[in-house]
């Protein structure tokens, strides 16, 4: 697999002494050299790991219940919500709990007239140059005016591998998961995804 390192070592690093001891325990002549067995073990371990990781689905790794804001939420409130929870984006839902969009830092930056990839220093420079804060223009606007919609979402059965591909191909940082009626079930963030690849080690 492209994601695995070539030089991967399993956490249980069998020594050839262990293998020779096992070969002695098992009666009969086994025509494999301990070194070859060790190599097979390591490669097989890597395959097992990939199988375990890739057989997991969003439902196994998602964060749920998930932080969310309702349609109609004021941007000031939305910003306070994000900063209070230390998150950079959040799904937006309608009154029935259906996913309406996703709002993230990037949407705020765009609304402020900065690029999607503006840095904190750019904001400071912008504020100092313009005798005031560019964020003031966000007042009295609602979240649906700036959110990304329709949001990229998926069902809870999507595989971890497919999520990784989505993150890379669509350049997103979180994937809301919805049921067949579009109701928000949970979210997979980059952090969740990292854990999925680490936990099974």
């Amino acid at each position, binding site marked *: 697999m492209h994601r695995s390192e070539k030089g991967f070592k399993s956490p249980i690093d069998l020594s*050839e002494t262990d293998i*020779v001891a096992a*070969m*002695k325990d098992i*009666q*009969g*002549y*086994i*025509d*494999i*050299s*301990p*070194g*070859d067995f060790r190599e097979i073990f390591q490669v097989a371990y890597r395959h097992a790991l990939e199988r375990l990781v890739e057989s997991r689905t969003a439902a196994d790794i998602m964060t749920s219940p998930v932080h969310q804001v309702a349609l109609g939420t004021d941007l000031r409130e939305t910003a306070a919500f994000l900063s209070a929870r230390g998150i950079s984006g959040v799904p937006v839902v309608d009154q029935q709990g259906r996913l309406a969009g996703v709002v993230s830092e990037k949407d705020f930056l765009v609304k402020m007239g900065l690029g999607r990839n503006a840095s904190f220093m750019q904001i400071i420079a912008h504020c100092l140059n313009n005798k005031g804060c560019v964020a003031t223009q966000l007042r009295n606007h609602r979240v649906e005016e700036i959110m990304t919609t329709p949001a990229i979402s998926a069902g809870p059965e999507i595989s971890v591998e497919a999520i990784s591909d989505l993150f890379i191909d669509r350049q997103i940082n979180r994937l809301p998961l919805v049921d067949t009626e579009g109701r928000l079930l949970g979210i997979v963030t980059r952090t969740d995804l990292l854990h999925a690849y680490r936990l099974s080690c």
Partner: protein
Amino acid sequence: MKYFEKMRGNGQSPPQVSPAEVCWSWIGSFLGIAAVALIHYRLLDQLGLTMIIGSFGASAVLLYGAIRSPLAQPRNLLGGHILSAFIGVTAHLLLAEIPWLAAAVAVSSSIAVMHLTRTLHPPGGATALIAVTGGDSVYTLGYLYILMPVALGAAVMLVVALVVNNIPKTRKYPEFWW
């Protein structure tokens, strides 16, 4: 540099087997070769037929001495011997005028075909070589060589392996049939 580095052989040899394993290897191979040799000397020799060829000695090593080996399984034993015998006889028929080439083609083609058919059995190489170098007693058999001594002898040794290798608790044969 790397090329010569590979010649050092940094691995280690598998451990020695237990005395019980040595005993069962001895018993199995004694009985296996005895069965083939008895049929040869008591029955067939008088009729001018052959049952025993040198490659069976090699098969005995695998069949009774390394019974877990993929090389020692029925598919490999029968497939390896029979395919190699066919290739050996064919090589002799086509290239009898150039014995060195017939010998080389017989063995190398046998290995390739055994690989392709997943029937690799080292003694098969000897079976193919004997078809080319075995002298008139082998040449007169023609393709009959495949059936006797090769297939029949291998079958007798297989029966003995099935009987003997499953007697001790620590042994089980075969790992797979086909």
